């Protein structure tokens, strides 16, 4: 293709995209002479260049459109009909350009249909009131804004030069073929690899004179890499250009009123990523316009503004770009989704009943899911959000939805800025090395038999007990079918903890090496079907290794079945509004059908034994367990204690002693918000809470410890020197949970529901040896309380221990303020008790 023609095509395509946007703006704001002038200029340029290149059809089309535009400039009222016609003309021009690009010449044919319509419209304009305004907001152009007379039409190329938009900075930028940039990027990637190889050699070898220049080379390479990456960055607005037009056309077709708001169009991201999200974004905006926004009458009836709003916003956040697509339409139809989920067998009716709205909403991302009652040209073809999600998955992004019936829907997409170079953790399994993208890794755990991180077994499934969480584990060798049933070495192993959305799981590997910057290369087509890998790369030592795809693994584990896998659910990074506290609970049945629960953090182990192993001595059931006699106590008298077969029990440990609580059946482990709603006077029961939609008795473990050990172990003596603990927590659940634990450890506990209540107690003369406070409380936080205790000479010497939810930013702040020793996770019973002991020791020492 000759250069002139190529230049023309690029230029014209760009102009047409601008034209689309401008026309939609113009329709809304027909009095804006500036927009009109801009449109006119664009059409005129196209016409001029076409004439110059001898492109007859294009010239005729542009000319007809220009004539009509000329009339607008002369003050003719703008109608929706006319704008539609001009848009149609532009579409035709685009079709011709496409043909021109492939065949290098204009296709045969004529455009009488369009030119005739344009001319007809131009003529009828002379007759007053001949054209009925379609859109109500269209007003006759005020004569006050008389535009300057149209310049004489010229077809000579000089017109081109004149048509420079004033806001253009043509002299500062050049057009570069995208292939050239891609090639450059590939070369830089190679350079990075070679540099890594050199560094590796230098690391192994003795000190040499190469060291300094090598360092220099390394820095230059890094800068070059940055620079080239930048050239590939494009504003996300490029992917949005067509949206105003699409929304406008949809609105016209469906008789809706829609405002499209675009925010952060200048946010930049890698061209490759941009290409991949273009279609999903378009699709989602289409969905908003087609499904989301209601017809105007319906909106008015619902008390909403007549114009529906679709808002597309993008911004950068820590190496990612966050895109939000929000509408204020009718929201997702939870009922219909529920029905579809059941009809398609994606979940059972019983499961669906237990799901929250948000969980149900996420089903819209499952394959082939649609709630559209009929297939239309806009939506309802069954290829929808699942495709959007798949596209976003491939670029390592996440998508989530929030919706409220009648109020609207918000989709949040989080994607990496670039996918070419990532930081990865190199691990080994079965003698082969693999790379795991660092982005997905939240923690690396070394397993030791005696450490706080240890591997437990739920039947045949290995899980990691890490702090208050129970993580499903899988061996990489098993996942990759290197070894179908690998031994998991409980005494010496590495676990890479991965987070996908809110799903967390651990991958067991044989060993862990370093982290390395790797250049992701796509898998060969013959290997592309392996979902466990997202690509491969060449390491510093020259060998090729596979890059693990955490999404693929999550899928293989079954943890990311769409329903239960909040796709980046809580990645709503801005202000997590009153996020509910969840507590892992062990659910079981004992004595009745009603489910019972106990906080998982208090549980040491779950066991199933042969019932015949139980012995009875002095009316007490005992079991030889790990070299000790362990007392067994039924939760209540209705528990069926078996004589043969298998018996389930839950092991609780208190320092060196253990007891087993006999139950009928272990049901599940859930991580749900727990609120004790009804407290109980019955011994052994803290109260009732709703867990997974069912009324559940929460068991009070401290009740059973004396039952198991009797008074022989002398809780009483300890109470001689009983120390007074003030426990402050605004949530009743934690007060109920913690106070029995503390009193079981031999302390006298006084509880307060707020900092103010605590201060009142002290003001009234109560004295405490230790203050245990929740940090995150309304009105007055734990930090503030601690400060005011310290400021009061009466309480200045009293140790204060802070209680935090695990992994919260408060934890770090707490550690800074109170010292790490006096900062305890709410569910870490052992640390809590030891912190109390230590505080006593400290006070005694000081005394």
């Amino acid at each position: 293709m000759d250069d002139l023609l190529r230049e023309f095509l690029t230029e014209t395509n760009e102009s047409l995209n601008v034209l689309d946007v401008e026309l939609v703006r113009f329709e809304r704001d027909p009095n804006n002479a500036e927009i009109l002038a801009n449109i006119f200029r664009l059409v005129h340029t196209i016409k001029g260049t076409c004439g110059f290149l001898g492109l007859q059809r294009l010239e005729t089309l542009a000319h007809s459109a220009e004539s009509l535009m000329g009339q607008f400039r002369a003050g003719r009222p703008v109608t929706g009909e006319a704008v539609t016609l001009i848009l149609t003309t532009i579409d035709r021009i685009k079709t011709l350009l496409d043909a021109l690009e492939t065949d290098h010449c204009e296709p045969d044919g004529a455009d009488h249909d369009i030119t005739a319509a344009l001319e007809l419209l131009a003529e009828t304009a002379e007759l007053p009131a001949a054209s009925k305004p379609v859109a109500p907001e269209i007003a006759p152009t005020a004569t006050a804004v008389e535009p300057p007379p149209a310049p004489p039409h010229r077809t000579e190329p000089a017109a081109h030069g004149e048509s420079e938009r004033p806001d253009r900075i043509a002299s500062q930028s050049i057009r570069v073929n995208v292939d050239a940039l891609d090639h450059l990027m590939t070369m830089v990637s190679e350079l990075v690899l070679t540099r890594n190889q050199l560094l590796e050699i230098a690391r192994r070898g003795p000190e040499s004179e190469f060291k300094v220049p090598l360092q220099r080379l390394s820095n230059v390479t890094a800068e070059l890499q940055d620079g080239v990456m930048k050239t590939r960055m494009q504003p996300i607005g490029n992917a949005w250009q067509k949206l105003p037009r699409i929304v406008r056309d949809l609105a016209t077709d469906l008789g809706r009123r829609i405002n499209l708001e675009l925010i952060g169009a200048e946010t930049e991201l890698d061209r490759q990523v941009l290409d991949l999200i273009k279609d999903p974004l378009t699709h989602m905006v289409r969905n908003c316009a087609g499904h989301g926004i209601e017809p105007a009458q319906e909106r008015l009836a619902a008390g909403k503004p007549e114009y529906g709003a679709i808002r597309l916003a993008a911004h950068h956040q820590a190496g990612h770009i966050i895109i939000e697509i929000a509408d204020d339409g009718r929201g997702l139809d939870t009922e219909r989704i529920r029905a579809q989920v059941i009809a398609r067998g994606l979940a059972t009716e019983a499961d669906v009943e237990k799901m929250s709205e948000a969980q149900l909403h996420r089903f819209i991302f499952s394959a082939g899911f649609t709630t559209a009652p009929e297939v239309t040209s806009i939506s309802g073809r069954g290829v929808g959000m699942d495709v959007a999600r798949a596209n976003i998955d491939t670029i390592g992004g996440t998508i989530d939805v929030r919706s409220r019936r009648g109020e609207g829907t918000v989709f949040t997409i989080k994607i990496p800025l670039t996918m070419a170079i990532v930081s990865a953790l190199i691990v080994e399994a079965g003698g082969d090395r693999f790379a795991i993208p660092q982005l997905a890794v939240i923690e690396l755990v070394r397993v030791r038999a005696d450490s706080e991180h240890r591997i437990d077994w739920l039947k045949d499934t290995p899980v990691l007990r890490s702090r208050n969480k129970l993580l499903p584990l899988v061996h990489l060798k098993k996942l990759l079918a290197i070894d179908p049933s690998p031994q998991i070495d409980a005494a010496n192993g590495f676990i890479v903890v991965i987070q996908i959305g809110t799903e967390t799981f651990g991958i067991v590997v044989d060993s862990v090496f370093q982290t390395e910057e790797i250049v992701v290369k796509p898998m060969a087509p013959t290997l592309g079907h392996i979902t466990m890998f997202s690509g491969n790369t060449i390491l510093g030592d020259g060998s090729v290794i596979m890059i693990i795809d955490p999404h693929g693994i999550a899928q293989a584990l079954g943890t990311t079945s769409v329903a239960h896998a909040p796709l980046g659910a809580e990645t709503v990074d801005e202000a997590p509004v009153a996020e509910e506290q969840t507590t892992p609970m062990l659910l079981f049945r004992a004595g009745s059908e009603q489910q019972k629960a106990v906080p998982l953090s208090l549980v040491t182990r779950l066991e199933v034994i042969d019932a015949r192993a139980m012995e009875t001595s002095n009316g007490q059931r005992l079991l030889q367990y790990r070299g000790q006699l362990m007392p067994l106590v039924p939760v209540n008298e209705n528990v069926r204690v078996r004589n043969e077969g298998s018996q389930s029990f839950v092991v609780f440990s208190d320092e060196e002693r253990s007891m087993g609580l006999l139950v009928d059946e272990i049901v599940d482990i859930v991580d749900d918000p727990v609120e004790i709603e009804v407290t109980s006077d019955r011994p052994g029961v803290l109260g009732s809470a709703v867990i997974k939609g069912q009324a559940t008795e929460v068991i009070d473990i401290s009740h059973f410890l004396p039952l198991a050990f009797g008074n022989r172990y002398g809780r009483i003596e300890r109470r001689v020197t009983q120390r007074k603990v003030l426990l402050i927590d605004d949530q009743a659940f934690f007060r109920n949970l913690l106070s029995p634990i503390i009193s079981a450890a031999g302390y006298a506990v006084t509880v307060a529901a707020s900092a103010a209540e605590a201060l009142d107690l002290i003001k009234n003369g109560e004295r405490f040896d230790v203050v245990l406070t929740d940090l995150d409380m309304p009105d007055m936080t734990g930090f503030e309380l601690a400060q005011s205790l310290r400021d009061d000479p009466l309480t200045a010497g009293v140790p204060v221990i802070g209680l935090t939810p695990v992994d919260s930013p408060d934890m770090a702040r707490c550690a800074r303020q109170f010292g790490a020793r006096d900062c305890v996770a709410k569910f870490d019973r052992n640390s809590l008790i030891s912190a109390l002991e230590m505080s006593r020791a400290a006070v005694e020492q000081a005394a």
Partner: protein
Amino acid sequence: MLRPDNETVVEYVTAVIDRQLFGLPIAHVQDVFIPARLTRVPLAPFEVAGVLNLRGRIITVIDMRRRLGLAVRPSTASDMAIGIERGGEAYGLLVDSVGEVMRISDAIRTANPVNLDPRLAAVSAGVYQLEGELLIVLDVDRVLEFDTSTRAA
């Protein structure tokens, strides 16, 4: 079929796989290399021996013995790979040994004998009757078409 007057001569890179002589049109062959530091790919199709780094490029290596349904043997030091390129991707065909480049006239080419092993027939573009032995011409495109479903679940 035979048109001696319009005879074309094609150059073939020859290779031996399980004692059988094969030929690849030289136009398809990028290079011949010793497959070193092969990384096996878990879950890959049976035919894929692994991937390796050849001058900064990642190459998928296909074990021709497996591909042709011949006796599989452990790799030896004398193994060679023939580099080809298809659809922008680089592949290496793992063979027992690579022989000389032969110029062969199309005149002595015959269609596949009907009783040829179906796995060989599937990738054969014809058979040449050389003096003393037969040479099977490999159809590169068909060699690369194999069931890519996962080997083990």
